[in-house]
């Protein structure tokens, strides 16, 4: 699946998007998997409560299933307007 990063999450991880092959069933499992990969992921995902996630461009929960999902995006709370 495509994994996208925005704002400081993007800056910490160093890329705006990447293709990720995973067996993770939920967002939370995907996060744990990414954190074990490299230090930059561990740094970006250190405090999950400071992050938001969107599944196929809909705001979602970290407990949500990844079944059928093609695009996962991680970002800090929005500050538009």
């Amino acid at each position, binding site marked *: 699946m495509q994994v*996208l990063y*925005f*704002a*400081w999450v*993007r800056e910490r991880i160093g890329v705006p998007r990447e293709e990720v092959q995973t067996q993770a069933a939920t967002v939370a499992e995907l996060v744990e998997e990414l954190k074990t990969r490299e230090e930059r992921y561990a740094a970006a995902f250190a405090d999950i409560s400071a992050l938001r996630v*969107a599944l196929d*461009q*809909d*705001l979602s929960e970290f407990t949500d299933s990844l079944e059928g999902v093609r695009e996962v*995006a991680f*970002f*800090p*709370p*929005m*500050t*538009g*307007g």
Partner: protein
Amino acid sequence: MIRVQQDPFDPGAELNAFSAAVAGAGAVVSFSGLVRDVAGGLRAMEIEHYPGMTEKALAEIRDQAVARWALAEALVIHRHGRLEPGEVIMMVATAARHRADAFAAAEFLMDYLKSRAPFWKKEETGDGSDWVAARDADEDALKRW
């Protein structure tokens, strides 16, 4: 009407065009958000967004507002990219028969847009640049709707 764009726009011209298109409605409310100066002197603001999701989130918020307050029309324009102090970041406009509906819908649009549309602001000052933190007050504002 939803527009997400990098280019500047003219809020006055947008307001006039919007008002002309909803001539039957008696009440038009607009909100514009400008890049304001911050402590340390703001050089520029960079607005990042999530193409695709942004338009989708804004359209959903707009449709909710139109349905809930029976608006004649609602407009949202939001810029992204690099902006200088004083530039207009975004605007919303609402039109209704009575002013209470137009005001409530405009506030609703702003509250949701602030915390639910995928935009992130970064401020560049003389001391460096930093992402704007979300305000608790903005998240709390959603609870009243």
